[in-house]
């Protein structure tokens, strides 16, 4: 059954704990990683004074193997485990699809 990670990006604070967790887990050299947080904004929307766009989005790279070694020990991928905003959910794609439909501002990554 294909696996994936559901990300509720509305609440991604951009803390980069996922990046660090990934980098130390896999001992990636500087500049390489299985996950990277990209940012849109911040900018002020022209209408409405307190209306800002600032989106942080974790993106999985080709170096993500869903922490195969951890999974062998019954553990979650390290980014999911350590996400400080608790916005990542790992599971079967078809189950995550139901969660995806339940709330806006989410993305579902199909990874394996």
């Amino acid at each position, binding site marked *: 059954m294909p696996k994936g990670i559901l990300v509720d990006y509305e609440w991604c604070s951009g803390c*980069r704990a996922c990046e660090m967790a990934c*980098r130390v887990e896999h001992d990636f050299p500087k500049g390489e990683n299985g996950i990277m947080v990209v940012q849109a904004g911040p900018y002020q929307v022209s209408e409405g004074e307190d209306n800002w766009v600032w989106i942080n989005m974790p993106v999985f790279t080709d170096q993500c193997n869903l922490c195969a070694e951890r999974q062998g020990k019954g553990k979650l991928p390290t980014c999911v485990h350590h996400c400080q905003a608790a916005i990542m959910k790992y599971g079967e794609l078809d189950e995550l699809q139901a969660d995806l439909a339940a709330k806006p501002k989410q993305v579902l990554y199909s990874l394996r």
Partner: protein
Amino acid sequence: MSGRPLTKKEDIIQVPHVHKEHQWQEGDLTVTRGSGWSGPGCHDGCGVLMYTDKDGKLVKVEGDPENPYNQGRLCVRCLNLPEVVNSEYRLKYPMKRARDQRGNPDAWERISWDEAIDIVVTKLTEIKETYGPETVCFYQGTGRDISAYLTRICYAYGSSNYCYALDGQSCWIPRMAAGFATAGGFYVMDCSQQFPDRYENPEWRRPETVILWGNNPVVANADGFYGHWFTDILKRGSKLIVVDPRITWLATKADIVLQIRPETDAALALGMLNVIINEDLYDHDFVDRWTYGFEALRERVQEYPVDKVAEICWVDPEKIRAAARMFATNGPGAIQMGLAIDMSRVGIPAAHAVSAIYQICGYVDIPGGMTPVVTFLLPDQSSGNEWVTEKAAKARLGIDKYPLLSFGVQLASTEEVLKAIETGIPYKPRACWFMQTNILTCTSAEPQRVKKAYETVDFILANELFMTPSVQALCDLVLPAQTYPERNGIVAGCGMQRAEAINKACDAIGESKSDPEIVLEIGRRLNPAAFPWDTVEEMFGAMCVEGGRDLTFKDLQEVSPGFLPFTYKKHEKGLMRPDGQPGFMTATGRLELYSNFFEQACRINPMPYYEEPTFSPISTPEEFEKYPLILITGARNAAMFHSEHRHPGRLRDMNPDPRVEINPETAEKYGVKDGDWVWLENSIGKAQSKVKVVPTIKPGILSADHAWWRPEGDPNDLYGIEKLNINNLLVHHPGDSGFGADYKALICKIYKLEEGEQHA
């Protein structure tokens, strides 16, 4: 705590563990459960799982999913801990240096611990006999597992000069002093942190409206407050109001943002109180039953009509009204106050005013409101108070000028200590002991003045994890300290406390020892009766008992993370006062909107008020013409804690240089571009920083990082601090209470480095 029965081990609520013991084996690795509440790191004390290999080396750290505090989550700093613990930069041996060789990096000489301890004991004994024990000052830095040992050895030695180099003790202490003096405790936003089952606890409910006031908690490791509890409660539907000169990421999620001029928090709070009182939005029943001085507050807030406040704060008056109405009518509400409140000369009045907002709305000790912290150990984190003699207490520097220093966290006045070193009045401090505090890089205002003054002190020693600019510049002896995975300890913490042990997981680096161990070994030589313990673990047990808990250190390890039984509305149940009467632990038994204690015992304003910062467009208009920008200092980033984490490595990769944030319009006006190195300068001094152009700060306002140095740089140049330290622009000038100082609103000008000029 006196008179109350000690809490027994069986009274402590434990969480379910897969592994009952705090240490177990996982394949080739040993896993140790513990808490990160000492260097390197912050005030949070997150639950961690530390992995060590068969050689006793720390190889990995993960968040402990069983710990209700962080629930498995962890930030970049502790995830990267092994790199810091095993860093080639760590101090590994005690070292001494001749007094006349201060500043010379080549003059250090490795010595044995026996010799190091003999030097300390001999020097401190000589100084005590020649000049008196009050002439030795004991310094802590950021609040972690160090205060209790530091105060014990300070007091047991005969001094009461417990010191902290931040002017006005402007970190947490103003907020706490205001809380204890006027409300009998320190109050925090109820994010269910007191319950082991957290958000699932049936008694807890979400706050309906929260105000995030002067804090960026998802970055800043607030005081005993895990920052991402904010995302937790926002996901659960709380409405958000943000008070901040900068649009933070959290501010983009807010319903209302009050982007105030820096350090005008007290004025804003008084303006919001004006709305809540004049529009009759407060909780009459609560105010009648539980507060003191409401009519005086009603009068005081008439001096702060919203339009006037809007002018002071540079925000739209309608937004102030909207925020006040939303908070008062959409309860329960809670307010998370940050460091920005403390870092103003009116830090105490600001904290008093902000607290009055939730108090008159009746959001006190109810689910989803503001809750007095549970203190597992002593709330002021000090130990050994019984050793303070009357003579020593009177000799604490600054106590005549600032009577509030006699209560609560009994620190000496930072500025008065500095002046005493410079002038010898009332006496000259002869020795200083820095316990993990990098005063020249991080804390001190006017660092060049401070350096010059401390160069005249006879003897200075430090415990440190790393060589720092302060040690390099000023110390005669340095003792290598341990990081938290290398040692045992106890967690007290500055927010809601729990029973929590710091557990040793890995072998010590070099000959390093823990701070408690260093203090115990030296303390038992200086005053054996004050240090009767053979081991630090015995000392930890005695400190639990001193805090009212009948636990040995082994018990503490077994129950960690443990919770005390919790109930709301304690003031109604007689649980807030040692005499068992209803009410709060204040002279009137009420929440004091008007403080007789402030007025009579401390000779300060009994009520909240606002004053302009030392330098501002309003207080110093002529000066402002020369230095036409407002400067905030101390902006936090996730990779670094104060002056820590600057060594080359993964954290430094995230944040290689000091930054100053500037609005695009202001950048253009002054001809600076993103990535440019600039000088920030005012009449006090100047510092370099790298420009980051952002739309999230208003035109005319800058925000700069603090505590920068380059550990990879030249030690002869003190690792660049002379050019990099933003505190060069700061002056010593604490508030009237002795608490709070203007670290968050300076004035300055900005200009590019000249062509060919090298940045530090």
